[in-house]
């Protein structure tokens, strides 16, 4: 049953579409009532609202996202029951949706669920072409039987990454190898200089949402705000996950204050050549102006430009990569497509192993206006068997002529 939220129960900021609560942790035995989910519209427009229970998945950055396969959606409805799934919210209106925990998935002691609230403004986009907007809010529900969280697993990696504002970010990667929800607790990160002196010490984990879902892998970031001079460092991270404690270490080098080596690419030159009935040969020189070595890969697109200016992609290809040192350059080259007489554009996207990407474009005019020598050359290249046969015939003919002349001279 759908119920209007009690007056004054939850007040939301003006001009917003939202929901409350954001997250709930239920330690109980189903069936159980979770209390209402309040959906609010304080904008001046009406909203069409769709509400559904979903299982949660988790991305590497820790963000929760709904599992939207048909089978998962069916299963989610067996775990969480909602009093309403669709309704309209006029400007300034709130609605309360009753949420009930019906059961746990088979053979599970916990479930990571959410109520997905989707709000779409009534009416169409005004003013022609554009991008409509839809809001989705996940009201998280972590359900478990009485007892502590039983997730198992631990740290699998530690690495340093360049953050914003000259910060170093240490990413501690945890993998939950169990079928249950787990929480990262009592995390510690210690950074030491090459001389072994502790230069930074930080705590991490232990928040209510420091969770790793069953089977998920999550990177937990720890920002090192202290200004560290150039040099070599070692870092150690440790965590308690479930009943286990694990640790990982890594080393990293700073090329400046809080500055990790980075890959920065600049296009040196791009050339494309080719003739009709041949592939376009593309050659790109890339300069590495960063402070780290990089492998450069290229994705090349061949676009035909018709007489009326219409463009259409005729071929795409990834070219073999090449390595480059800091301050050096790499040449990436290869063939793409097959040209017909006419104008072409070649687009190249160069990607360095550090994530830096550059694009370059050039044009090529394919012609079939060949010289006689070119035509012979092309024939010999494209038809080697016929060429060998032809040469053999010429040799035999020459031998016959020579034999006849010899016989004539002997008769005389």
């Amino acid at each position: 049953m759908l119920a209007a939220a009690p007056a004054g129960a939850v007040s939301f900021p003006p001009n917003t579409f939202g929901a409350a609560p954001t997250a709930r942790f239920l330690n109980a035995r189903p069936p159980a009532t979770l209390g209402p989910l309040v959906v609010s519209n304080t904008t001046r427009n009406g909203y069409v609202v769709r509400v559904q229970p979903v299982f949660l998945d988790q991305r590497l950055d820790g963000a929760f996202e709904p599992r939207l396969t048909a089978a998962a959606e069916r299963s989610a409805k067996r775990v969480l029951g909602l009093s309403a799934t669709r309704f309209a919210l006029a400007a300034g209106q709130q609605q309360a949706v009753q949420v009930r925990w019906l059961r746990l998935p088979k053979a599970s002691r916990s479930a990571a669920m959410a109520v997905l609230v989707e709000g779409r403004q009534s009416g169409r986009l005004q003013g022609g072409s554009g991008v409509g907007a839809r809001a989705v809010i996940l009201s998280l529900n972590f359900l478990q039987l009485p007892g502590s969280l039983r997730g198992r697993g631990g740290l699998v990696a530690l690495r340093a990454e360049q953050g914003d504002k000259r910060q170093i970010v240490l990413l501690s990667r945890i993998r939950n190898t169990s079928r249950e929800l787990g929480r990262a607790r009592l995390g510690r990160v210690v950074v030491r200089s090459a001389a072994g002196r502790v230069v930074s010490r930080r705590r991490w984990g232990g928040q209510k949402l420091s969770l790793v879902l069953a089977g998920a892998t999550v990177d937990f970031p720890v920002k090192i705000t202290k200004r560290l001079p150039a040099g070599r460092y070692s870092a150690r991270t440790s965590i308690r996950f479930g009943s286990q404690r694990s640790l990982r270490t890594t080393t990293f080098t700073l090329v400046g204050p809080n500055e990790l080596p980075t890959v920065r690419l600049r296009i040196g030159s791009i050339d494309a050549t080719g003739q009709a009935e041949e592939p376009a040969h593309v050659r790109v020189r890339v300069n590495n102006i960063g402070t780290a070595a990089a492998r450069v890969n290229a994705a090349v697109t061949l676009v035909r430009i018709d007489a009326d200016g219409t463009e259409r992609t005729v071929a795409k290809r990834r070219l073999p990569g090449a390595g480059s040192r800091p301050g050096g350059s790499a040449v990436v080259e290869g063939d793409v497509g097959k040209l017909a007489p006419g104008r072409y554009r070649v687009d190249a996207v160069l990607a360095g192993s550090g994530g830096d990407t550059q694009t370059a474009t050039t044009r090529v005019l394919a012609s079939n206006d060949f010289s006689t020598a070119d035509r012979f050359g092309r024939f010999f290249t494209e038809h080697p068997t016929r060429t060998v046969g032809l040469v053999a015939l010429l040799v035999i003919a020459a031998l016959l002529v020579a034999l006849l002349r010899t016989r004539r001279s002997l008769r005389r």
Partner: protein
Amino acid sequence: MTFVRTIATAAATAAFAAAAIVPAADAATGSGGQLVTGTVLSAITVTPTPVVLTGMSPGSATPASGTGTVAVTSTDCYTLSVSDTTNEGFLKFGSTAFTARLQWKLGAGTFADLVTASTTVAANQPVTLATNHSISYQQPLAGQNVPAGAYTTTATFTGASSTC
């Protein structure tokens, strides 16, 4: 009896008004002072605005563009994501569609294709009373030869609590 532990955030502010403001007279002292307690409910709002693209001239070397905002208020740390589950990132008009995907970027970031899969816009953001995330869109037009019409797609912005 079911024990329900609702996680409330003390860091949240009065903008999300109290679910239960309980005034109680301090009868023991007779001083007339009042003990006022309030429980702040956790709440999140995500309010994106539709964006009209300007410069929609098929074949043009300059992309069509437009900028909008996604306003977020949250009593928890949050992560904001974007996806297009209706048109896979392609602007459509009836059965006609662009062959190049619509692109988006946050603030001064770099443009990326709008795709079906959910992509992080802003991860592990702090508790906020009002944050306007500026989202710019561009539609590449070079080589795009489509008939006249109002081409649209829908960007879905998803907000959920996260660590920070």
